[in-house]
């Protein structure tokens, strides 16, 4: 087919470009100037041990606010797009096969532990790998496990949206507090930096990341819930 031919031709060209990029590539031996600044000054500036977290929450905090907003818009649009297909009466939905006792018990046992792991991941975002985005995804995974076990389970839209908007509101509030009390928007030094390596350290980073975690978790959960409430065909 002529179309496939053009596609393959295009991809061959792209592959040639990639190969050209690869041939002369040698990884740097030293960090570049930006990375070097982060490596040298993060601990003193922010008190965070995880430099990636420091970049996301403080140095590039405004970008992260944008990311979270994009995610919020995505969740809202998913809900809007699917709103037309939603059942009015949850009782009339066709029941999928029951989950069976093993899965039910297992998910009742594991869901709280997964939630706890999610909270651990975002509360320790400044010390260990992880942070608000990962923690939020893990929280949403726990919701997913419960949804898989009982697809007709009714999740409170209200609770999810309250958590979502409240954490977003406090997040912005902390950002403004940074302007007033410290060096600028989303500056984490509105709280004391504390001992390097402790759970309550690095100023407002754990607080901000916890809020991001709750917000991201609520956004993903609302996506899952609005998908699962669409109409079964036939």
């Amino acid at each position, binding site marked *: 087919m002529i179309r496939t031919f053009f596609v393959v031709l295009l991809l061959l060209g792209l592959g040639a470009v990639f190969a050209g990029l690869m041939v002369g590539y040698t990884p740097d031996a030293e960090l570049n100037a930006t990375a070097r600044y982060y490596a040298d000054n993060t601990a003193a500036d922010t008190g965070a041990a995880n430099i990636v977290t420091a970049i996301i929450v403080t140095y590039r905090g405004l970008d992260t606010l944008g990311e979270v907003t994009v995610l919020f818009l995505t969740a809202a649009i998913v809900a809007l797009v699917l709103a037309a297909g939603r059942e009015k009466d949850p009782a009339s939905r066709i029941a999928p096969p029951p989950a*069976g*006792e*093993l899965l039910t*018990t*297992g998910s*009742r*046992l594991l*869901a*709280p*532990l997964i*939630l*706890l*792991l999610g*909270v*651990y991941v975002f*509360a*320790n975002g400044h010390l260990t790998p992880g942070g608000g985005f990962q923690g939020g995804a893990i929280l949403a995974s726990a919701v997913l496990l419960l949804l898989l076990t009982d697809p007709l389970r009714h999740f409170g839209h209200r609770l999810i949206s309250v958590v979502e908007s409240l954490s977003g509101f406090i997040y912005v509030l902390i950002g403004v507090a940074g302007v007033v009390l410290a060096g600028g928007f989303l500056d984490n030094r509105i709280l004391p930096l504390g001992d390097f390596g*402790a*759970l*309550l350290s690095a100023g407002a980073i754990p607080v901000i990341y916890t809020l991001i975690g709750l917000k991201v978790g609520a956004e993903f959960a609302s996506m899952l819930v609005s998908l699962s409430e669409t109409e079964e065909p036939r």
Partner: protein
Amino acid sequence: MSKARHTIALFATLFVFWVLLNGTLAPDTLVIGVLVALAIALLFPNSLSALDDLAPLPRVAGAVVRFLAYFIIQLVKANVALAYVVLAPSLPINPGIVKVRTKLKSPVGRLLLANAITLTPGTLSVQLEDEFLYVHWVTVDSDDIEAATASIVAGFEKELEVIYG
């Protein structure tokens, strides 16, 4: 079992996990752990914890140790048997799904029983319904309910009955 006892069991499990995850006993970690564990225990009352339905302590301790020892022996046995099956050129198997009976009532106990059966020689729990457990068995000795129960379930059930009375 009362609702309060259930919440306390869940809270205790979550708190222990929090401390193990963090790996420290710093006061701020403990305070936050209490808050988080309490929030999850209250927000998800439908959850279970391994401490639910536990019988009084002194009786349980011995049974837990015996259960774990039996389980580990069975797990190693399972793997040796599997190694024999996998490495033998002729694949000496005779698989089938048999039905066995369990007397356990506690959900956690039943799940532990099913998991233990899955990890022991040549058996895999497929479905649990009321008092019957359907087990896929690589080498079916007998398809009689009672005989199969005796050879698959009995060893674990004895201890689990003590633990989750």
